């Protein structure tokens, strides 16, 4: 049985991290060379973690499923990265950034962790600038910022609509520098299948070489998971199609507790689904809501082309419902408002499941060139996909599964409930509560990797300096390898009729219908039954062609779907347990008279932490959230 100790340092909020660093144990350069660290994933937390640890002198081994670390899905983040620089002189500060993230997360995140990420945010911008990330600039040569949803200051640094690409390629450049130096060894095209725990400590991983099919053993003194979120469980999402939960899920099955699995952000603006073959819902950055106005017709079934609908017949419902924040309300609020209008029959487009995002007024005021400069690539991408030119008519958008606030439970050290297993970036649960604010994911990922983990992992490794290099020729490694090989054998031996993709689509629909933008008791209970049936069908009727000992993309997919079929049930269980609405988790039973999320702080001001329990139901542990520095308030953006 696990015990939760969040290990939050004593003292005033603004001194906790300083005190932690002052008391953290150090590892001498000579000892660092003798310590191995595994980092799984090369996105905006993994690549920074690996390069920073390599620079410090540790032996780092990095794994990714892609052919090169530069392709991790952080590359697709669009809008920007937050920092409390206050370059716009609009009253921003570390405290304001902290408060916005806590409030945006609907008071379900840990104060100390959030304050720390706000504290390191400025260093992230300094570092990326120094390594040549071309952030947008003013004519005077200084950096510029823009506004993002849920806040009233301008603190988002950006590179046109492809900030994720620019910061990830920056992190990748630091990573290849360390590969050249020899402190980091890169293992691309490897998928983590299992975690190896020896005497209660994480000591290695088992991976599949995706080219040869060989199962490999890798050992280390500590393992860092930077494996991202699990939004692809919905099948259609804004994520890369190969993003998956398998590394985190198998760590869960080895004893790492999973926190708030049902907290999933449904992003309000993606290109709507067009047909059943669609594999992906492409994101249209939240930054577009800075200049775009969201509306639907005032009359149901108004079939006039959008440009022919006059001003008086348009319902700018975000501006109407939320006058203080207007089109810049947080993502969960914007998503639900769009769903509400479409469910009520006011949706636009061929399916009625879309709303307009209109740039007419912004173009009139600022000119097309200014809009092109800010969002050119997004308008181009939208046109490539839909054939519609958004400079002359509104974009059509609809919510889509995007980011998972839930993830592996970690303490203040970013360590999971397995000693020596750390989780950074989206793969942990720690900073975003029940809803993430825009441009905070790049901040949290890079902050964890560059400026937090290097301290906390050293604090752990200081007690490992006498542990010799971990031998992979042991019963624990053998067991993990056998378990993985047997699962693969089982997947290949069914030879049924349905492909992994078929099952993934079916699961995605169950998740979207019952554990999407709104949830209720009946739906969730039913859905658990549906998932169990689907899982049974999967293990009876799956069809995976080919062999285990070769490049086999269908086998890769099948393994991921098998894990999603288990994770889906835990998400439903978690959503069922939380009989309140908070942030992105909207329980229909718990809403205010004007249909906003209604929290229940007396009963649910806790992190729901699930412990794997074999074939028995998972065990719920609660980390009570104590708010010492902010006052819990009903979130209002009106």
């Amino acid at each position, binding site marked *: 049985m696990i015990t939760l100790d969040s290990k939050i340092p004593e003292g005033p909020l603004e001194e906790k991290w300083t005190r932690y660093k002052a008391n953290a144990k150090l590892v001498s350069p000579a000892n660092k060379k003798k310590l191995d660290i595994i980092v799984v994933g090369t996105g905006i937390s993994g690549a920074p973690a690996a390069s920073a640890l390599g620079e410090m002198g540790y032996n780092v081994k990095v794994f990714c499923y892609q052919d090169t670390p530069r392709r991790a899905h952080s590359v697709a983040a669009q809008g920007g990265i937050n920092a409390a620089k206050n370059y716009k002189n609009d009253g921003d500060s570390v405290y304001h950034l902290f408060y916005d993230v806590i409030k945006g997360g609907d008071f379900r995140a840990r104060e100390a962790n959030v304050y720390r990420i706000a504290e390191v945010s400025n260093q992230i911008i300094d570092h990326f600038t120094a390594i040549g990330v071309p952030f947008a600039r003013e004519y005077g040569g200084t*950096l510029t910022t823009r506004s993002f949803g849920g806040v009233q200051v301008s603190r988002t640094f950006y590179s046109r609509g492809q900030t994720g690409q620019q910061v990830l390629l920056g992190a990748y*450049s630091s990573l290849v520098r360390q590969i050249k130096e020899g402190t980091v060894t890169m293992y691309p095209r490897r998928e983590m299948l299992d975690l190896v725990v020896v005497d209660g400590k994480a000591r290695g991983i088992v991976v599949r070489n995706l080219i040869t099919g060989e199962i490999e053993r890798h050992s280390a003194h500590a393992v860092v998971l930077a494996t991202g979120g699990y939004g692809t469980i919905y099948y259609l999402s804004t994520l890369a199609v190969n993003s998956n939960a398998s590394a985190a899920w198998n760590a869960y099955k080895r004893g790492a507790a999973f926190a708030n699995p049902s907290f999933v952000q449904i992003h309000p603006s993606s290109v709507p689904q067009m047909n059943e073959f669609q594999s992906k819902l492409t994101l249209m950055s939240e930054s577009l809501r800075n200049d775009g106005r969201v509306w639907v017709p005032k009359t149901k079934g108004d079939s006039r082309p959008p440009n022919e609908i006059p001003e008086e017949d348009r319902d700018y419902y975000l501006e109407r419902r939320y006058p203080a924040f207007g089109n810049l309300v947080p993502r969960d609020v914007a998503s639900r408002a769009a769903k509400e209008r479409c469910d009520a029959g006011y949706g636009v487009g061929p399916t009625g499941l879309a709303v307009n995002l209109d740039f007419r007024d912004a173009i009139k005021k600022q000119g097309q060139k200014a809009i092109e400069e800010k969002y050119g690539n997004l308008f181009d991408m939208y046109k490539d996909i839909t054939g519609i030119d958004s400079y002359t008519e509104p974009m059509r958008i609809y919510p889509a599964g995007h980011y998972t606030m839930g993830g592996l439970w970690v303490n203040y050290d970013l360590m999971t409930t397995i000693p020596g297993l750390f989780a950074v970036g989206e793969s942990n649960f720690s900073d975003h509560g029940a809803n993430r604010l825009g441009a905070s994911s790049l901040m949290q990922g890079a902050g964890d990797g560059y*400026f937090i983990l290097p301290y906390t992992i050293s604090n752990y490794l200081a007690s490992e300096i006498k542990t010799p290099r971990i031998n992979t020729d042991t019963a624990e490694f053998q067991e993990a390898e056998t378990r993985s090989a047997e699962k693969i054998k089982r997947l290949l031996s069914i030879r049924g009729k349905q492909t992994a993709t078929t099952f993934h689509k079916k699961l995605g629909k169950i998740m979207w219908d019952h554990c999407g933008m709104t949830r209720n008791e009946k739906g969730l209970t039913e859905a658990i039954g549906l998932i169990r049936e689907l899982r049974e069908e999967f293990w009876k009727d799956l069809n995976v062609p080919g062999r285990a000992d070769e490049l086999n993309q269908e086998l890769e997919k099948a393994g991921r779907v098998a894990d999603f079929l288990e994770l889906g049930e835990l998400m439903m269980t978690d959503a069922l347990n939380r009989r309140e609405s908070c942030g992105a988790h909207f329980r229909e039973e718990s809403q205010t008279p004007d249909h906003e999320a209604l929290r229940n702080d007396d009963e649910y001001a806790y992190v729901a932490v699930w412990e794997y329990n074999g074939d028995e139901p998972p065990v719920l542990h609660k980390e009570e959230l104590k708010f010492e520095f902010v006052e819990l308030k009903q979130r209002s953006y009106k």
Partner: protein
Amino acid sequence: MKLKLKIWKQGDAHSRGSFVTYDLDGVAPEMSFIEMLTYLNETLIGKGEEPVTFEHDCHEGICGSCGMYINGYPHGPVKGLTTCLLSMRNFKDGETIVIEPWRAKPFPVIKDLMVDRNALDKIQQAGGFISVTTGAAPEANTIPVNKKNSDLAFDASVCIGCGACVAACKNASAMLFVSAKISQYALLPQGRPEGKERVRAMIAEMDRQGFGSCSNTGACEAQCPKQIKLFNIARLNREYYKAF
């Protein structure tokens, strides 16, 4: 739509490949090219045939995973698009489409349409970075950058490392790829201290990996899905001359 697909099938780098023709019915014009191929694979698996191996991931034109010759063009006939963003609207019912992997000596075929592009990582590793250690950066606004240069650096930095420029080049040159990285750093004051070493190291590595020379035909620029401009190669050449 009904299509005839002539697809290159090859077991690995050492085996002989050949074209296999597939008839595919039921293609919707709003599918992306990748979705069309996924649909083909689902059909093949249903019939007990081996699916076609190809790479794709983000489906947003930004990760650089996808890439194949489509009717002789890297990423297909539409300018400025990756394969994953190429819509089937651009093809006609009844059309025959020829699909091949990147053909370049430094990109050996792994299987079917999947090639090994590790050579591009090797070039970047040779010097495509600014050596600032985590924690050593000065406050960001102490490094003012001329906006025009900053914008040009950004335009160069959007390279996704897909390899289309190499595939398009009759010499399999990686000059556009190298010039994008060199230009980004050459245009920024942060990149100047290591400028000379960087350009020498990256060019030397490009040669070592077996990429050919540039003969200024401009095919790379025409096929680059991110529309990186040829003048970056001119800047690369200038940087290279200055480095000795």
